[in-house]
């Protein structure tokens, strides 16, 4: 199994964006990823991506479209119906995780991001596993 992860990350906090970028670049040596600073014209921008991402990480408190809205948009188009969408959020109280689960996310990684397990989690997500890693 050698599918390369092509990651899309939507995050409005610049430090969190930088953590992800360093993680993907320095730790995993990946260059094929995209990071959105906001969620305006989200679907339009996602659909214009080439190559098409095969993993989507979404922050929840993003403007103008929240993580939940973005998930709904992705699920509304055929091309993204089955792409794993993972919440990467600092809102991981039980109730919030429950909301993510009922909304239909394929998993959740909590902030602070656990770099040690991140590569392994990527692999599992690409394999179609659900990963709810809340520390």
């Amino acid at each position, binding site marked *: 199994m050698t599918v390369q992860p092509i990651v899309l990350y939507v995050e409005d*906090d610049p*430090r*969190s964006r*930088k*953590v992800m970028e*360093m*993680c993907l670049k*320095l*730790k995993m040596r990946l260059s094929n990823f995209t990071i959105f600073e906001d969620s305006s014209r989200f679907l339009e921008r996602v659909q214009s991506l080439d190559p098409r991402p095969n993993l989507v990480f979404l922050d929840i*408190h993003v403007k103008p479209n929240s993580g939940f809205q973005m998930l709904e948009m992705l699920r509304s188009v055929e091309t993204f119906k089955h792409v794993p969408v993972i919440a990467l*959020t*600092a*809102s*991981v*109280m*039980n*109730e*919030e*995780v*429950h909301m993510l*689960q009922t909304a239909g996310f394929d998993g959740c990684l*909590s*902030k*602070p*991001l656990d*770099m040690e397990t991140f590569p392994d989690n990527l692999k599992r997500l690409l394999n179609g*596993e*659900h*990963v*709810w*890693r*809340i*520390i």
Partner: protein
Amino acid sequence: MSRARLKRFSPCQLSASAIPGQRILALTNMITTQQPLIYNVWERLIAPHPSITDIEQRRQSRLLSVMMLTLTTLVGLTGLRQLYVNTMYADTDWVAVFLAFTAVFLAVPIYWLNHSGHYKIGARAFTALAFVLIASYSVFDTFGAFFGSLIVLFSAIFLTYTETQVVVGLVLGIHALWAFPHNHLTAFFFNVYIAVLILLFVRFRTRLEQERQQQLRDTNDKLRASEGALQQINVTLEEKVKARTLELEHAKEEAERASHVKSAFLASMSHELRTPLNAIINFTKFVANGDLGEINKDQAETLTEVVSSGKHLLNLINDVLDMSKIEAGSLNLFIEENVDLQAILTSVESMSKSLLADKPVELKVETDETLPRIRADRQRIFQVLLNIMSNACKFTSNGSIWLRAIHTDNEILLSVQDTGPGIAPDDQSLVFEAFKQTETGLRQGGGTGLGMPISRSLVEAHGGRLWLTSEPGKGTTFFVALPIKSMQLVPMFDNMERVA
């Protein structure tokens, strides 16, 4: 004979009995039950009119009916006898015959009056009839004394006290008119004596009755008064309950609102603290790893300290939030059916091994071959077990740690036994108190002092128990008893995949 018995042998049942012997028996019974039929006819004849409700008057009405009927029969027979005597001996008492037939003639309408509900008129008519008949026949001789008494007696039975007094006056007056001129004073005074006795008796009875009724009225009044008081109390109580319910509803709404505000605050605090920690921990890690350029050993060690401090802060945030939720009563469990305890134990085991690193401590896992799946919050059970295990790993410097799981029909008993320093008896209760670490715990460092109180609350929220036994110098055993299918837990999802 009872009515019930009469009913039992209804014609319907008679025809239904197929066996001849039984049929004869039934017929015999029918014949014997003819007697009550006559009795019933008699009962119907003397029954007072339903419009009469007063018990005493009903009795009087019955008696009057009986008397009218017997009078009709007896006086009629007497009259016939007189006629018979006439034919045999020709010395007919024509006055007697005339009076007898008048009596019969008048008794029937009196009976009818009484029977159709006009008791009072009937009673007066009867007394008047008796008065006229007896007075005209026999007041004027020696026997007048007895007959006069009879009229007074009748009026005492059937009329009111005042009416009786009038009757006594009339009887004695008429008797006196005859007795004094004829010097029949003995009979007259006898009559006076009886009349006075009867009047006294009636007076006595009336007074007694009045007193009884007064007593009844008093009791009734008292009852009504206490009933009123009770009703008042009831109304007051109802009002109080309503007011209290309203108050409680307000308080509940207020509490719910406060709880909601608190939850929202905790959620936002968690979010706000975690976001900068993401940068602190991960940037430090990159630098410490040398990803951003060479650093020396001291710098690396220091930065690693920063990372572990950041992680400690994260744990503290989690624990403080958990504790706040527990104290606010807003800790929600995310219950799943069929939680695989074996999988949780495996994760706990592997994480414990990395915690022990290269310490000379042997980790042994002993579980029942098959453990039943339980209804629980997977994440929270994992949290509890990891907390207990990480304590054991932290405090045991050499020896062994046993992780055990056994089950009964409705409970799973998990235990973690170590060969650590043990906990002094005085400290054993401190373990479960918030922010109270034991001396050893403080020396060891690293803990938040909240792990055990949270764990105990979590286990108790599952309907289970968490406790410890320890002997200083030998080691400690923590026990967790969990119900397999706790009735107090409501599952939220079925087999939701959620890997810790």
